[in-house]
């Protein structure tokens, strides 16, 4: 299990996840920086992600889509708001239309990632912040409908694998 702790702030609507990896900071940074590595973990196994654009610089845009079991596509965008390689990355993540343009009134997640050396490994902290409870609810509802979030049994299976 990679996640060692999590913290939820129900008033500020933030989720902080701390995970530890047995790899140097530079290598963990590459799973964010390299779109080919990034798309191997960003989407769930049933909805793998493809990054068509990955401008990994402050102000840069990324465009991706996730492909569902029946070939349907869910599009998303990132806007990178801060980078300090290989330690810090901040970006906004939202829903895009078929043209890859951000969809108004759809949830946007503000995400801040930090990587610190931890012995010979790396500690990764991700903080996700939502603008409103409505947005958080909408995100989860859509995730459930499209099967983007895993079902309980799938999680247990993952946990059992260790």
């Amino acid at each position: 299990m990679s996640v060692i702790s999590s913290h939820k702030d129900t008033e500020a609507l933030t989720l902080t996840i701390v995970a530890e990896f047995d790899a140097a900071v530079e290598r963990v940074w590459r799973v964010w920086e390299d779109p080919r590595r990034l798309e191997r973990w960003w989407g769930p196994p049933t909805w793998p992600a493809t990054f068509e654009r990955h401008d990994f610089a402050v102000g840069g845009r990324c465009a991706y889509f996730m492909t569902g079991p029946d070939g349907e596509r869910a599009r998303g965008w990132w806007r990178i708001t801060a980078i300090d390689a290989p330690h810090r990355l901040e970006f906004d993540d939202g829903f895009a239309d078929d043209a890859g343009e951000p969809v108004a009134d759809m949830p946007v997640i503000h995400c801040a990632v930090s990587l610190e050396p931890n012995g010979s490994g790396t500690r990764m902290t991700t903080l996700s912040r939502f603008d409103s409870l409505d947005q958080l609810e909408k995100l989860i509802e859509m995730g459930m409908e499209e099967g983007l979030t895993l079902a309980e049994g799938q999680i247990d299976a993952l946990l059992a694998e260790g």
Partner: protein
Amino acid sequence: MYNHVVVSQFTDDEIDRIFHALADATRRDIVTRVLRQEESISQLARRYDMSFAAVQKHVAVLAGAALVVKQRNGREQLVHGNPEVLRKAARLLDEYERVWRRRADAIADILSEEDT
């Protein structure tokens, strides 16, 4: 899915009051604010460039729908978000936590494959 779970906990009357309360933009904004931080009615009145009485009315509608709770503290009326709603937030954040646990495990897999 969540809708069904949440809605079934309320009566039709309660649902009507909630929808009426949230049909107004100022009231939606008040709920969002006091969910994050407790505020007095006079503080809210300053934010919206509205009379104390007008804000008090909005708060009364929200309190009627149990979306906020009023508490008297000396001369001030403090307004804060309903804990029930906060519990809902906790439940939704739990769901989102699963997304990140899955991602962290997938990153670990990629890193260990690179090792070999």
